[in-house]
């Protein structure tokens, strides 16, 4: 297993091995950070923070095969730290030049979805993003967030129901 080999090498202080581990799943890591931080610069910052923490703490990782879930937990914590720092500086939402596919109605819904999602409790927001935007399985989410599987299920159920309520709840039955 390449992964285990690389982890072993990293534990011996091989930086290239660590970079290789991350680069092997670079899009997964980047998207994960992006979903939390919503912009390229912060996502890169979070990954830099993460790799330093990984390097300094890799010796605490007992199961080499658990590297990916362990490192993603750390990445999420790095993202959350950046978010907390931003909260204190009160960011103004920057308008970017974007190209939006689809009609205005869809754009409106998209904006509302973004808004309603951000109004949810952080715990519910993050599981919905991890499940639906990154397509992670319940089990993986539970591992990364270090929260029991049942809790993840109920948080997703609760989060989706709240979104439905906010959108008017008129389609609660059609499943």
């Amino acid at each position: 297993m390449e992964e285990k080999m690389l982890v072993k090498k990293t534990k011996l202080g091989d930086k290239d091995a660590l970079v290789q581990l991350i680069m092997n799943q670079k899009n997964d890591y980047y998207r994960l950070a992006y979903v939390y931080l919503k912009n390229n610069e912060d996502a890169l910052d979070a990954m830099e923070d993460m790799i330093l923490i990984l390097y300094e703490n890799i010796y605490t990782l007992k199961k080499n095969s658990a590297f990916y879930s362990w490192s993603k937990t750390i990445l999420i914590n790095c993202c959350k730290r950046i978010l907390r720092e931003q909260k204190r500086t009160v960011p103004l939402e920057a308008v970017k030049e974007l190209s939006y596919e689809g009609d205005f109605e869809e754009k409106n819904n998209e904006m509302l979805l973004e808004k309603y999602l951000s109004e949810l409790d952080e715990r519910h927001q993050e599981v919905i993003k991890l499940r639906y935007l990154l397509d992670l399985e319940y089990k993986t989410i539970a591992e990364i967030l270090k929260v029991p599987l049942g809790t993840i299920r109920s948080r997703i159920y609760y989060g989706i129901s709240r979104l439905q309520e906010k959108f008017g709840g008129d389609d609660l039955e059609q499943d």
Partner: protein
Amino acid sequence: MNRIEKMLKNKKRDIDIIEAPDALEERLRSALGDKEMTKIRRNITGKIIAACLVLVLMGYHFDTLAFYGNKLMGYNDVMNGTLKELNERGKGQVIDKSYTFKNGLSITLDGIMIDETQLLAFYTIKAPKGNVDESLPTVTLRGFLGEHMPQSGYGKINDTKTMMNNIHSFEPPGVLEKTLHMNFRFFQNGRVEEGEITFTVDRQKAMGHTLKANIHKSIKVEQGTIDIDSILASPTRTVIKGSIQNILELARDEINNERIRPNTLELKLIANDKEIQPQSGGMSTNMKGITFHHEYDALPENLKSLQLKLTRFSADHDVNKEIELTKGMKEQRINVHGQDLTIDKVYEMNGHTYITITTEEGTVLTKVYLLADDKRLELNKTSEDQYEKRKDGQILHRRTLEFKGVGKDYKMDIHRMTYVKDYNITIELPIQ
């Protein structure tokens, strides 16, 4: 699959196309730099000493932050002038209740201040390990009518990072909500730790309002009207509420393809010929149309005159304009919706088409495509941003738009555009 899941699925498509930038590998390598791998020896004695120190330090800090009579102590650096004065006059309600988390962190709700516009919570976080900045909690307030969402908040960390004094603003509780629960939540190593402080509101300490009036005045702007609906001033702050379009206007413009979505609205509140310090503001679009609220500092006591001045308004507009482009063209100035737009350069590279444009700082093409031989190319990214300040104070923004793909004949298809306009319109507000 229900509607929400479908919408999320649509959003997922946006995420799926995101790829880690090429710079990533380099950034990761340079972050590691010449970092040495260090193993930390576990030192149990050290931990015990640290734990003892925690207790000692906490006891020590407790005294310095204690209350003196009716006043909150320790918030001088955090409070603004208005709050300081109210505090001096003993207008706050002392709570002084603490919660200590397993990791040694503690939170003390020192006191609250309530009036008709908000509930202000004053609380102190103490982290004896000197890492108070690493773990700031999310704070919510719950009464029997439900959750009161935090509106804004700020705080100050001391030099040793062992303590942070915070002021957090919430919607005011209902008259019948006597008992409130303040909930603090930390994320640590992927786990959540929660703590709660329960307290009783002393209604006799609540301050009510100093000025409350419906205004119903409108300000005409280029694209419509801004309605100023009401003012509510309390001893701690002043809130102005208004709307930009009601739902009927929204629908009408939607049909006519002349939609606007406001971005910034700068309103200055002037009392007795002096500008009142703005504090915060927000705007939202929902079934009621587009509404906004602006918060300012409290009004002066002997109010003689009160005005509201519109200084700046920017919005996103439907434009629907096509501009013909030719490869290699240079510095062509065009006018779109009264805004100057200069096409600096059009060129191809690695299968992409690049267009460098310059506009005023506040002008952004919010929905733009490139038509290449009747193929529609999507905007991939915007890069190489440069800002130039001119002598007349105007700031120009030059950047390069990258479109995926190439073609022979080009047209830039601008669907929507945001731009800023300065105003100088003043309206009188009632003072009684």
